């Protein structure tokens, strides 16, 4: 070949060298989000500690400290060890689950409005819980002669299984020599709508005896969540700790077109399925334990995106997890104290706290 004309490329390279100035607004923007991020990281441990020390029952700080080491009075020990501590830990895990599952689902469906409801997970869990409660009532206690009894402790298991089955059904129905994000999304909303309608039908038709516990579960609450509930959460937390580092690169590639991701060496159907499985599992376990909490999964990934502006992209997922956990525990704390001794469901406080911040960020940086 002819000697390459060297002038064209070096000329271009040098012409590109003049750095464009970064607009001042952008700089101050990343400074503000950096400050907010610092605030979040700083206040997280404080929120967790406050959630242990404050509650409906007024305990002395010193007494609580003793109780944490098992040295308090019996009453304090019980409250701390069997009520507050497990509740805070369940809250942390649930927050992490919802937020991570939202981030995963938004990435793989390539839809920023995706959350655990778009796979039908929440609706499936709701239907399963409703069926479970009905059987626990009708099969268990009709005219005193018990056919069989299902202990109420298994309610989270029922919710979790229902959510997983629904997610799996959506997955199977959308599979068509690959998974198209649009098809997955549409199938999810269709099946979700049917399951939700069935659940509402059950509630309207036969739910009267258990109406209150069903409504309480449906509004999403951490009330009386204890160590038992961790069994349903921990396996998924551990699994996600194992899978998320593996999923990081594939999920990033999945944001590209399928053809690009494939030619970069990613087996797209396999990794999309795997990411979906992890997302659905995280969501289903969390919904099973605390009920459908809508806000966290949808908004926290976006909130984290604003807060992690200007930081390394590797911090995005940890920020999502931290924000989810902190928001749930903090909202639960406020929910416990606000109308004490009544409790306000955690999802409501989370929305009241998170939405204004989110809207301000949205308004500023679009």
């Amino acid at each position, binding site marked *: 070949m002819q000697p390459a004309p060297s002038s064209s490329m070096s000329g271009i390279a040098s012409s590109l060298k003049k750095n464009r100035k970064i607009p001042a607004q952008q700089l101050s923007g990343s400074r503000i989000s950096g400050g907010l991020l610092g605030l979040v990281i700083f206040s997280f441990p404080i929120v967790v500690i406050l959630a242990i020390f404050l509650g409906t029952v007024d305990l002395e700080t010193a007494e609580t400290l003793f109780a944490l080491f098992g040295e308090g009075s019996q009453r304090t020990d019980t409250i701390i060890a069997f009520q507050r501590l497990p509740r805070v830990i369940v809250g942390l895990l649930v927050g992490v689950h919802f937020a991570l599952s939202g981030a995963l689902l938004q990435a793989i469906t390539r839809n920023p409005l995706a959350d655990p409801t778009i796979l039908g997970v929440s609706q499936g869990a709701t239907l399963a819980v409703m069926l479970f409660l009905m059987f626990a009532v009708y099969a268990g206690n009709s005219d005193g002669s018990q056919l069989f009894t299902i202990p109420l402790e298994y309610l989270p298991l029922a919710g979790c299984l229902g959510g997983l089955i629904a997610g799996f059904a959506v997955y199977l129905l959308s599979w068509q020599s690959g998974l198209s994000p649009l098809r997955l999304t*549409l199938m999810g909303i269709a099946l979700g709508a049917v399951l939700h309608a069935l659940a509402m039908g059950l509630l309207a038709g036969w739910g009267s005896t258990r109406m209150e516990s069903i409504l309480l579960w449906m509004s999403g609450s951490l009330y009386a969540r204890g160590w038992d509930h961790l069994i349903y959460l921990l396996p998924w937390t551990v699994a996600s700790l194992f899978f998320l580092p593996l999923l990081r690169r594939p999920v990033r590639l999945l944001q590209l077109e399928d053809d690009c991701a494939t030619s970069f060496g990613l087996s797209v159907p396999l990794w999309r399925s795997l990411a979906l499985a992890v997302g659905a599992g995280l969501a289903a376990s969390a919904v099973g334990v605390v009920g459908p909490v809508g806000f966290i999964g949808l908004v926290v990934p976006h909130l984290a995106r604003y807060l992690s502006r200007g930081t390394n992209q590797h911090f995005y997922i940890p920020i999502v997890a931290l924000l989810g956990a902190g928001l749930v525990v903090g909202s639960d704390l406020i929910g416990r104290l606000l109308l004490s001794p009544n409790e306000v469901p955690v999802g409501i406080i989370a929305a*009241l706290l998170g939405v204004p911040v989110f809207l301000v960020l949205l308004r500023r940086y679009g």
Partner: protein
Amino acid sequence: MSKFQALSPNSYGAARRQKAAPFFLVTGIAAVAVTVGLLGLGIGAQYIPVSEIIRVLWLPDDSVSSIILWELRLPRMLIALLAGASLAVAGYLLQSITRNPLASPSLTGVTSGAAMLVVLAFVCLPQLISPYYYPFLALFGGTAAASITLFLSGPTLSSPLRLALAGVSVSFLAAAVTTLTLLSAGPQTGTLLFWLSGGLQGRSWSQLLIMLPWVVPGLVCVFFCLRPLALLSLGDEPAQAMGVNVRLWRSLLALLAICLSAGVVAVAGPIAFVGLCVPHMARMLGARTTGTAVALSLALGALLLVSADLFSRTLAAPRELPIGMITALIGGPIFLAIIYRQKA
């Protein structure tokens, strides 16, 4: 937001298959909707034979059937037809302008804003506000929430994603306030829960009159906005290049969608599913142009809601079942089947 699949009528691969002429499809479905509505006139707590219906519709008199027909069933049927059509068209509009398949009429915050104001008024000013004013409150709350959404998504609606996110957040906020109010309201929330679950029970001419000025101009205007709507679904830049003032038209179409859904939510309360799923059905049933897709959404929405209303008041008579549930139970499986049969 090039990442979203452009939600043009063709994006589902429908264009490849030859379909019956869309005109016949639309008129056919509309005709079925009206037929179901007319059949529904006869069915209810008191059965009215067809001959009687025709006679009384022609010449209203003081007979019981005439009163039932004119005061209860006819306005209710008209509300169902109009509400279904409006919700579906509003959903179509919002899905097009946000280019997001998950958009629905509640995306702008209309529904939860309406619910919030009704609940607040009921709990805080119970003696001042009679249920008669609920529609006005809902209308006000819905439009106010939607205006906040529009304000937050930037004066010019430059980004469809921002519109969607602002709408979702406003909805969450309003829903949180609603639930909080309900929780502190104590046991006397029966009437409210009835309104909040949505439905057409007891709706009559006065409610129809509240709805008409929002819904009819909305439905008519949509057909004058088809071309910008079609171009917007191609993406901002092509649309701009073809002479559409993207920001202006996106705001206008959003306003149109808000009018349509506010009118419905004021009268019928929140009804899910229609606005979310019917537009997709219309696209998949082979609507090739935006005009056909809008017309098909309109007809399908009307058909779905009018049949759901019929079932909701007859299946468990004399009780009424929540209409949102029936809509999803009828429409959901059909929707599932349609998606399942789509070729990639």
